[in-house]
């Protein structure tokens, strides 16, 4: 159990009186990619918000490499090693590209090759070219790269990506896919929320499907693609291409 990178056990979450997550459980192994899938409104972002601490769960456990993190503040959870690339990117618009990166820098012991601005610019040369540009003026694809880069600056032990391909042109989506694959090759543990089933299943080791706040599938991408009934019932509006 303690070998799980991230484990949710029976997590209950509410918005006011609205019961959104009804006992969500799943576990991510170190160095793996877990695709968290589900229709619009199924509770994926709520699940991410609960992990990062935007929302306090009213029940259940969340453990990061065995340590309980549920109910802690977002900055504490970030310091413990969760990195967030939120839905809608939420880059700091009035800061420059470089400032967006340095404010998020965190040192972490036991990291072989920690991220720093130079390494980020190697991986995302377009950000390097726009070093001093005010982030609010970047294009959608650049914003997404910056959101990923900003999360990496914290040297996260687990990276949460909430719909990184949303609203991007196909070429940029492919680039996001390549980025995720490269991070996986470096051993980064990732929870990937995606509507783009093809992108998600190409890179994922494990898939979890939420339906109205409940886990209705937890298995390998292959099991999922072989099971048309589950796909059409729970991801109906989206097609595996």
């Amino acid at each position: 159990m303690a070998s799980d990178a991230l484990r949710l056990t029976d997590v209950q979450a509410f918005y006011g009186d609205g019961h959104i997550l009804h006992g969500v459980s799943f576990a991510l192994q170190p160095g793996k990619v877990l695709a968290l899938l589900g229709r619009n409104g199924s509770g994926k972002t709520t699940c991410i918000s609960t992990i990062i601490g935007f929302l306090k769960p009213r029940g259940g456990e969340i453990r990061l490499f065995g340590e309980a993190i549920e109910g802690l503040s977002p900055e504490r959870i970030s310091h413990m090693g969760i990195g967030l690339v939120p839905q809608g990117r939420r880059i700091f618009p009035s800061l420059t590209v470089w400032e967006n990166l340095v404010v998020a820098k965190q040192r972490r012991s036991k990291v072989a090759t920690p991220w720093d601005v130079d390494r980020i610019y190697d991986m995302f040369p377009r950000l390097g070219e726009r070093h001093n540009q005010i982030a609010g003026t970047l294009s959608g694809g650049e914003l997404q790269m910056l959101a990923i880069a900003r999360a990496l600056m914290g040297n996260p032990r687990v990276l949460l990506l909430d719909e990184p391909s949303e609203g991007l042109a196909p070429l940029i989506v492919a680039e996001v896919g390549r980025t995720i694959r490269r991070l996986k090759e470096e051993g980064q543990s990732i929870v990937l929320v995606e509507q783009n089933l093809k992108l998600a299943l190409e890179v994922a080791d494990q898939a979890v499907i939420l339906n109205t706040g409940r886990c209705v599938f937890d298995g390998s991408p292959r099991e999922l693609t072989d099971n048309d009934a589950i796909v059409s019932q729970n991801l109906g509006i989206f097609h595996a291409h």
Partner: protein
Amino acid sequence: MQFWIIQGLNSLSLGGLLFLLASGFSLIFGLMRLANLTHGAFFMLGTYFGATAMRANSDLSIWTVAVSAGVAVAAIGGLFERLVLTRLKTNPLGQVLVTLGMSFIISDACLALWGGDSIPVPTPQNLQAPTRLFGFVFPTYRLVLVGCAITAAITLYLLLERTRLGAMIRAGVDDAQMARAVGIPVANLFTIVFCLGAGIAGAGGVLGGPILSAYPGLDADMLPLALIVVILGGIGSLLGAFIGSFIVGFIYTFGTALFPELAYIILFLPMILVLALRPQGLLGRLGA
């Protein structure tokens, strides 16, 4: 001609003092979304501290006194923020009532401690001799005050725009929740900014002493001016606070000199017009 020049300089020096008051108010509002109505009282506390210290020991330099009083007021502000305001994060009405109540408490405490008479503060001796420039005579101390405001503005600008701490503060202004999610300790930044704002106001109160004197009601005279500055200049904008301070300094000084009975109309009408026509202020961004 001398009238216009002197009033012009008076406007500039009042503008400088207003900047020391309004910059902190604006910073606090920009980051914490908190209208700190105690800000005028912090300024007045500085003036009383300065008056007491400099009358007790006339050898003290006004700069030493300003820095010490600034630190003292910053500490008081920090305690107030940590012990009370952090509990009211999601309660704007509570914040208004608590900061207003705190300013009344400080006013009354000052009245009890220092009495109802105005306490004049001596102009530092080495700045008493007038300065001659371009054939005109200027009160040196007022020139120095303008210099102080410009120095403070540049320092604050460099702190906010050129340091990592400043970038973290701006990240918190942009999106406090997201800032926390990347590990920025936003609650500590709130305290730092609150102390900084209170400290600048306290130091400004000391520096304003020789012009304004320490008197009951100084806080209530200064706070509305700071509010007008911030609304004119745009909330959270340092440059806006700077320009707004000098605009208000001019309007107030010339307004009271030329049309004393209309001073408040001259002062508040532009504020209302700006609010109605350009709610984000002259230089502010909406939602920033």
